[in-house]
């Protein structure tokens, strides 16, 4: 089943490139630690989800690129083409010349409606290419003008036109000491609109990813490229094929079929986990937790710790809230890896901060 990715704004396009690159290079990795037939099934599944096939065999990403300035898109297109292993479609991008000036309203109320038809046409063409279409993956930042404003607008349109398809928005939560003065306004406006039209919000906080780069990876001069690569790595390990309890003989059909259970107010961040639990359990409970295990010894891995009722809200049993997906096929170069995708209260505090700052700015 195929996913169509919509990359919006500078952030969305840069991250989108890294994600496709990470997915394809993992798919071609030779250290899968599994038998040939398994590896071929994995590659075929990954390929069908994210790429379409051209005559000469170079996979084309199932993506639509949107930005209001030309620079980032042309960089993204050429980086992909240079890799030689994959590329974006020739007519898959839409861009303008004047930018959005980090203004959410400009993105949502001006650019969106003005270019609605062109953008939705591109998306429709991409959807029609899929034999079996499972949903949309929309990559955007909250702090800027294009990604956030047009992202909210496009998601709403997708809700109207493709009401039966799943939509997952990948949101980049800006740095607390952020780059853009009006980022708090932009963030709140974005979230309040996405809450109604999106099915799932997958959040990555710049601060958190920055810490991963600094502390876990010891990178001295952290650039956006480093951050994007870590992010793409995490997303890749969520999206690559896995088996779940319901379908244990072939790879899960729908990569977006993460059953978030309720239209959540917010989804939690995903963290590349060791399986150690968060010690302070009582202030962060989850509605749903998904653990994805890849690599050696997945069949014998012990996930009982995640079934502790204290981790979950009072009205939900762990058996309903907790899921595990596994595959023996190792991801990237990691012999074993685990990802936790959590729908929890983790973002309540950051959200409070943003709302507080926005009110202060508004009231002053």
């Amino acid at each position: 089943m195929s996913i169509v990715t919509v990359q919006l704004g500078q952030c969305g396009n840069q991250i989108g490139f890294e994600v496709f690159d990470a997915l394809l290079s993992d798919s071609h990795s030779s250290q899968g630690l599994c038998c040939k037939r398994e590896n071929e099934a994995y590659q075929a599944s990954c390929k069908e989800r994210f790429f379409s096939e051209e005559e000469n065999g170079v996979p084309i990403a199932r993506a639509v690129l949107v930005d209001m300035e030309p620079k980032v898109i042309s960089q993204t297109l050429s980086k992909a083409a240079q890799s030689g292993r994959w590329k974006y479609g020739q007519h898959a991008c839409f861009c303008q010349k004047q930018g959005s000036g980090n203004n959410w309203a400009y993105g949502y109320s001006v650019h969106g409606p003005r270019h609605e038809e062109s953008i939705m046409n591109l998306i429709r063409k991409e959807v029609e290419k899929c034999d079996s279409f499972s949903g949309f993956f929309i990559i955007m930042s909250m702090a800027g003008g294009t990604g956030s404003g047009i992202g909210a607008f496009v998601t709403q349109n997708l809700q109207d036109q493709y009401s039966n398809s799943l939509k997952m928005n990948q949101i980049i939560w800006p740095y607390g000491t952020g780059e853009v003065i009006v980022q708090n306004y932009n963030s709140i406006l974005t979230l309040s609109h996405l809450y109604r039209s999106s099915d799932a919000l997958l959040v990555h906080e710049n601060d958190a990813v920055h810490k991963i780069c600094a502390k876990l990876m010891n990178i001295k001069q952290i650039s956006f490229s480093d951050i994007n690569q870590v992010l793409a790595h995490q997303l890749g390990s969520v999206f690559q094929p896995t088996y779940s309890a319901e379908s244990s003989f072939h790879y899960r059909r729908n990569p977006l079929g993460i059953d978030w259970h309720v239209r959540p107010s917010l989804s939690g961040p995903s963290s590349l986990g060791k399986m150690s639990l968060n010690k302070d359990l009582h202030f962060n409970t989850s509605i749903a937790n998904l653990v994805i295990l890849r690599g050696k010894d997945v069949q014998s891995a012990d996930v009982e710790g995640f079934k502790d009722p204290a981790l979950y809200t009072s009205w939900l049993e762990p058996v309903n809230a907790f899921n595990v997906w596994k595959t023996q096929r190792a991801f990237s170069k990691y012999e074993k890896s685990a990802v936790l995708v959590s729908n929890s209260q983790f973002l309540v505090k950051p959200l409070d901060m943003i709302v507080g700052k926005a009110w202060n700015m508004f009231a002053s």
Partner: protein
Amino acid sequence: TCALWQLLFRVLSPLPAGNALASIALEVQARLVKSALCSQGYPRLALAQLPEDGSQGSRELLLALSWLLARGPVPEQMLAQTRVPLGDEMTVCQCEALASLGPPAPHMEAEGPVDVRHVQWLMGKLRFRWRQLVSSQQEQCALLSKLLRTLEHESRRLEAVLAWRRAEPVFWQWMDTVLGTCAPEAPAAASQPTFLPWVPECGDGELELVVRELQTLEEELREAVERRRVAWEAKARGCGRGPEWSAARRAFRETVEKELGALQRCWEQDSGPAPAHGPHRLVRREDGAAGDRDLQAAELIRTLRSQEACLEAVLRQLQGQCRQELARLAGALPGLIWIPPPGR
């Protein structure tokens, strides 16, 4: 001449046509054709001596082709290779062991007030399932249109075979004249040319190794089974002893005994055909002659109908249980008005 080599290759190759075949070099195709013909017993030596670059020998190749066509129904065999398998197949499962209904469903306790958030959660789950259903249906439509295109290709191939059958007598008349122009060959020498496939000698040593590996595997499995049995027994013992537990345990034991009995009967049955399992092709026969492994449609329909009746009975029983449960819940919450679903 090159085209004839390629045609012979395509006819003799055991694999269905694909892009991979087209990219094999002509010399390789020619060599494979020679060895395949030789292993099938083709008598004319002149073919084996033809150069492999496709420069000469079209008459020999034509003779080889007509030899193959005379031996067996080549076009029909090729059609069977590339047959579109969908649409005329169904899976059948007559295994008695699998007709059992699995472990009894756990008894659901629904006491106390239900949190409205739980209901919202259930709604969300339902909505999610609904969307999955819709996208599966859309996928089915797309695949059906693909199937239609493949079937169109196949019917074109079928028409080509029919055209061949109509023109065939002319072909044989022509081939007679071609054979007439050939010089008679000396009877084939007893020596077989060196085209036989090479079978590596498998010494006893390898077999020994395999036997030993299997024995160690069997040991390991036996130990694993023992460990699991001990662990399970320990767990089962600690599971409490109330009356409902022993009732449940009795039910489990009965189900297991039934399944075990069915499995044993399956194994011990060596008289009569094995129960059918797996995909079967639907073929319409006028003469009523059924092969050994064929199943009569009427018999299958009868079996399926009886299975359907059993399942319907179980369904009605479960529905009755649900209705009783709902009635009980409705009684327990006096302030609420329940509208039960219409009974059937």
